[in-house]
C-alpha cells in the first residue's frame, strides 16, 4: 500500500455514481442525475490532476527516471501458486497521462451534456451510462495486469454499446450499436487468444513483470516458432488485433462511422478521445515486449497504422455528414499514433516514436473532443448532421466558430497550436525509421488540412441555408467546455512530454527539427489553401474535381465498399450458405430422423393394434390356428 492508494477512488467514484443514478433513475427529476454525475466526475478529475502533480512533480527526484508502482493490488482468483489473477491500480507515466486525458474530456462532456441533452428522454440514464463508461475506461488504464485490462476492455465495449444505442427507438442507432459491439467483440477474440498465448509462455499476466526489460518474462520469450515468427510475436499480433478493433484500424474500422448515431457528446468522449485510443494504449502498455521480442509485430502495427491513416483521410474528403468526417479523421489520427509506436524503438532517443505517440494521443484528445463538441453545438443549432444544410453559421455561432477554427488549425499542424508539435515528433520518428511511411504521413498531413477546412468552410462560410429558426449560439454550459478545450488545444503542445512520458521512464532531449517541420507546415498551409479556393465561396470547382475523379470519388464516397464486403461475407456466405443449410439439416435430417423413429413406432403399433380386438372368438380362433400350425411343424420336422 503506497501513498497512492487513494487513486483507487478515481475509478470507484464514477462506479458508485453509476450504481446510484442507475438505480434511482426514475426518481431523479430534471437535471439532478446529471448534476450528481458531473459532481462525481469533477472529484475524480481533481484527484487525477493531483495524482499527475504528485507523480510527475512533487514526488519526483530530479535526475531519475519515472518508475511504475502499484498503488493497490488484491488477488482476485488464485489459480495456482504461480498464476493468479489480480485486480489493482498501476501508476506509471502513461497511466497517469491517460487519467488526465480521460477525466478532463469526460468532465467536459459531462458539463456539456447538461445543456446538449436537456429535455431528452432518459437524461439520468444517459449520465448513468456515462459514469459506467468513465469507470470502465479508468479501470482499463489503471489495470495492473492483462487480465484485468481485458475485463475492463469488455466493460468499455458494453458501455459504448449502451451509449451508441442511447436512442434505441431509432433503428439506425440500434443497429449501429449492434455493429460496434459485434465488430469489436470479434476483434477481442484475437486479444483473448493473444493473452492466453502470452501468459502461457511467460507464466504471468502482470504488466510489471511482463514489461521489465531485464525481467524473466522477456528473457524467457523467443522459443518455439510458427510460420517463421516466434510464438510471442504471434501473441503480440493477436493482441494487436484486439487493439485494432477498439481503435478502428483497417479492416476492423467499419463500426466507428456508424457509431456516430450516438449522441454527439458520446462521440466526443468515447469515439474520439478515450475508448478508441485504447488500442494505442494497449500497444504502449506492452511496448517493451513488442520492441524487445516482436519487431515483426511492431512492423505490422506501423503499416496498419499508416495505411489506415491514408485510407481514412481519403474517405474523409468525400463525406458530407459532419460527424462522419470527424470519425474518419479520428481513424486517420489514431493511425498516426499506431504508426508512431510501430516505428519506435525502446529506450532513450530511439524511443522518440513512443513519446510522440503518447504526445499526439494527448493533444488529439483535446482538439478532437473540441471538434466533436463544436459539431454538437452546430447540430444543436441547425438540427442536422449534413453539411449541405449548413452555411454562413459564423455570424450566429461566434464562440463555436472561433473554437472550431482553433481546433482545425491545431489538427492541420499549424504552429504554435499543439497539433503541430506532436505531429512533428511523429514525422521525425517516421523519418528516422522508414522513408515510405514518412512520405505517406506527409501526404496525409496535407489531406488532413484539406478535409478539415473543407468542413470548416462548409459549416461557417458560404450562404445561409433555409433554417427552421434562426440558429442561435449554444448556452454557456456548452460553450465553456469548448473554451476550456480550446485552451488545452492551444497550449498542451508546450508540455515537456520528452521529459515525462518516455519508453524507459528516463528523460531525453528533443527539439524541433526544422528540416521536417517547415515542409510539414507548408503542406498544411497548402491543404488549407486548396480548401479555401474550393469551399470558401460556393462555386462549381468541387463538383468539377469530383467529376474528373468520378470513379475514384465514388469509391471513396462509398468508403471503398468495405461494409458491403463484410455484409457479403456474413449475410450471403455465412448466413445463406452455412447457417441456412445447418438449420435445415437440423430441422429435417437430424430431427427428422428422431421424428421418423417415433412415427415408425406409431405406424407399427397402429397396424398391429387390431390384433387386440377383445373378441374372445377371434382369440380362440388364432389360438387354435397357432396350435395346429405348431403341431404340423413339429410333426414334419420330427
Amino acid at each position, binding site marked *: 500500500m503506497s501513498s497512492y492508494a487513494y487513486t483507487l477512488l478515481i475509478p470507484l467514484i464514477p462506479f458508485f455514481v453509476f450504481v446510484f443514478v442507475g438505480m434511482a433513475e426514475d426518481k431523479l427529476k430534471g437535471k439532478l442525475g446529471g448534476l450528481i454525475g458531473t459532481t462525481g466526475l469533477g472529484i475524480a478529475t481533481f484527484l487525477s490532476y493531483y495524482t499527475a502533480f504528485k507523480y510527475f512533480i512533487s514526488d519526483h527526484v530530479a535526475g531519475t527516471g519515472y518508475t511504475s508502482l502499484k498503488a493497490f493490488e488484491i488477488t482476485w482468483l488464485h489459480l495456482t501458486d504461480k498464476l493468479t489473477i489480480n485486480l489493482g491500480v498501476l501508476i506509471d507515466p502513461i497511466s497517469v497521462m491517460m487519467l488526465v486525458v480521460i477525466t478532463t474530456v469526460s468532465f467536459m462532456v459531462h458539463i456539456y451534456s447538461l445543456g446538449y441533452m436537456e429535455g431528452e428522454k432518459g437524461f439520468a440514464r444517459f449520465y448513468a451510462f456515462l459514469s459506467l463508461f468513465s469507470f470502465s475506461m479508468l479501470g482499463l488504464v489503471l489495470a495492473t495486469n492483462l487480465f484485468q485490462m481485458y475485463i475492463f476492455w469488455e466493460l468499455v465495449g458494453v458501455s459504448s454499446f449502451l451509449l451508441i444505442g442511447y436512442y434505441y427507438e431509432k433503428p439506425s442507432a440500434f443497429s449501429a450499436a449492434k455493429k460496434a459491439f459485434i465488430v469489436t467483440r470479434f476483434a477481442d477474440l484475437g486479444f483473448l487468444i493473444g493473452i492466453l498465448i502470452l501468459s502461457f509462455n511467460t507464466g504471468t499476466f502482470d504488466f510489471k513483470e511482463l514489461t521489465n526489460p531485464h525481467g524473466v518474462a522477456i528473457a524467457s520469450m523467443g522459443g518455439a516458432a510458427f510460420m517463421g515468427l516466434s510464438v510471442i510475436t504471434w501473441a503480440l499480433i493477436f493482441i494487436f488485433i484486439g487493439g485494432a478493433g477498439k481503435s478502428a484500424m483497417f479492416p476492423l474500422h467499419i463500426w466507428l462511422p456508424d457509431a456516430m448515431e450516438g449522441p454527439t457528446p458520446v462521440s466526443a468522449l468515447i469515439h474520439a478521445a478515450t475508448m478508441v485510443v485504447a488500442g494505442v494504449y494497449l500497444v504502449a502498455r506492452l511496448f517493451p515486449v513488442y520492441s524487445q521480442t516482436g519487431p515483426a509485430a511492431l512492423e505490422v502495427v506501423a503499416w496498419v497504422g499508416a495505411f489506415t491513416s491514408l485510407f481514412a483521410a481519403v474517405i474523409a474528403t468525400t463525406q458530407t455528414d459532419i460527424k462522419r468526417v470527424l470519425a474518419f479523421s479520428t481513424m486517420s489520427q489514431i493511425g498516426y499514433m499506431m504508426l508512431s509506436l510501430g516505428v519506435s524503438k525502446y529506450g532513450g532517443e530511439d524511443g522518440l516514436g513512443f513519446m510522440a505517440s503518447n504526445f499526439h494521443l494527448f493533444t488529439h484528445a483535446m482538439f478532437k473532443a473540441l471538434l466533436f463538441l463544436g459539431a454538437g453545438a452546430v447540430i444543436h443549432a441547425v438540427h442536422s448532421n449534413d453539411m449541405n444544410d449548413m452555411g454562413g453559421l459564423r455570424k450566429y455561432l461566434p464562440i463555436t466558430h472561433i473554437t472550431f477554427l482553433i481546433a482545425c488549425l491545431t489538427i492541420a499542424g499549424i504552429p504554435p497550436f499543439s497539433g503541430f508539435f506532436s505531429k512533428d515528433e511523429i514525422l521525425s520518428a517516421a523519418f528516422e525509421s522508414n522513408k515510405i511511411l514518412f512520405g505517406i504521413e506527409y501526404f496525409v498531413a496535407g489531406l488532413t488540412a484539406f478535409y478539415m477546412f473543407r468542413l470548416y468552410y462548409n459549416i461557417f462560410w458560404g450562404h445561409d441555408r433555409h433554417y427552421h429558426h434562426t440558429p442561435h449560439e449554444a448556452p454557456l454550459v456548452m460553450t465553456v467546455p469548448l473554451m476550456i478545450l480550446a485552451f488545452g488545444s492551444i497550449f498542451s503542445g508546450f508540455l515537456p512530454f520528452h521529459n515525462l512520458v518516455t519508453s524507459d521512464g528516463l528523460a531525453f532531449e528533443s527539439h524541433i527539427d526544422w528540416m521536417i517541420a517547415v515542409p510539414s507546415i507548408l503542406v498544411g498551409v497548402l491543404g488549407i489553401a486548396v480548401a479555401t479556393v474550393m469551399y470558401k465561396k460556393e462555386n462549381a470547382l468541387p463538383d468539377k474535381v469530383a467529376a474528373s475523379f468520378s470513379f475514384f470519388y465514388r469509391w471513396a464516397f462509398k468508403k471503398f465498399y468495405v461494409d458491403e464486403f463484410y455484409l457479403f461475407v456474413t449475410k450471403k456466405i*455465412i448466413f445463406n450458405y452455412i447457417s441456412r443449410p445447418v438449420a435445415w439439416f437440423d430441422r429435417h435430417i437430424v*430431427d427428422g430422423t428422431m421424428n421418423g423413429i417415433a412415427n415408425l413406432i406409431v405406424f407399427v403399433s397402429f397396424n398391429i393394434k387390431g390384433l387386440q380386438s377383445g373378441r374372445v372368438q377371434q382369440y380362440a380362433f388364432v389360438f387354435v390356428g397357432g396350435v395346429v400350425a405348431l403341431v404340423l411343424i413339429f410333426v414334419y420336422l420330427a
Partner: protein
Amino acid sequence: MNILTLFVVIPVLTVAGILFTKDLKQSRLVSAVGMTVQLILSAILVYLYVTERQAGNMAPMLFTFDALWFPALNIHYAVGVDGISVAMIALTGVVVFAGIFASWKMEFLSREFFISLILLATGVFGFFISLDLFTMFLFYEIAVIPMYLLIGIWGSGPKEYSAMKLTLMLMGGSALLMVGILGIYFYSVPTGGQLTFNVLEIAKHKIPIEMQRFLFPFTFVGFGILGALFPFHTWSPDGHASAPTAVSMLHAGVLMKLGGYGAFRVAIFLMPEAAHEQAWIFIILTSISVVYGAFGAIFQKDLKYINAYSSVSHCGLVLFAGGDGGAELLLGAAQFGFHAAVLEVLALAVTHPAFG
C-alpha cells in the same frame, strides 16, 4: 441433520406448504420464502465448504452422510460434496430463486405450477448431493418428470409436441443410463464381495477395462442426451421454445448441467481408462455440437430458439472439456449456467409485456 439433506428437505417442505395455499399470491409467497431459504443455505454451504478446505480438510467429499435404505441391493442414501457440486448447488440456488420471480404472475393453475417447479428443483439439488448412483438416478428422474408437466401445461406454441419429445428423448437417455449404472453396479467390486452403488467405493476398485469400454458409451451418451449432445439435441430447442420462461431458465441454466455433471461424475470419474480411449469420438461429437449449435443459432428468428441453439453450442463446450479431461468442465458449466439463465431472463423481458 446433515446440511446437505436440508437441500432436499426444504424444497419438499415448500411443496407441502404450497399444497395448503389457495391462490397465486399465497403460493408464490410460500415458494419465494422457501427458495430464499434455499439460496441462503447455498451461500452458507459455500462458506462452510471454503472454511473447511482452508482448514486443511482434504477429504474427497465433505459433509458426508450415509444411510442404507434398500438392503437387498445395497442402495444407500449417501451424500457428500466437493468443490464442483458446491458450485453447481450455488448455481441452482440462484437460478431457482430467480425463476420464482420470473413466474411471479403465473395466473393459470398457479399452485400446481409452483409445486412442479419446486419438485424439479428438488430433483436437481438431490442429484448434485448424491454419491450413490441409484439415488442419483432417482433424483434425476424426479427432475425430468415435472419438466413434462411444466412444458405441456404452461408452455406455449406446440407445447404438447415439445413436452412429449423432450420426455421421450430424455427417457431414452435414462434407458441407456440404467444399463450403464446397472453394469457399473455388477462390476463395481471385481474382486468379489458386497456390490455397491457408492461412487467413491467404485472409484477405489477398478472396473475391468473390457466392461468400461462397453459401459462408458452408455453412461456418457445417457448423460450426454441431457447435455444436448449432437445428434441427440433436438429436444432442446423445441423444449426451450415452448417452455414458460422460468422453466427455460431452469432447463438451460441447471437441467442441462446435470448432463455435464453426470458425465463427469459417473462416466469419466469411474471409467477413466475407457474415457481416455474413446475420448476422440466424443471430442468429435461435442465439437460438432459447439460449431453446429452456433451456426444453427445464427439462422433462428425466434429469440428462444436462438437461446436454445446457443445452449446446444455451450453445453457442447462443457462436454467437450469433459471429453478432454475434466476439471475445466464444471467451471465452464457453472459459468454457462449463469449465462444461460441471464439470457433467459432477457428473453423474458422482451417477450413478456407484463415484465417490461
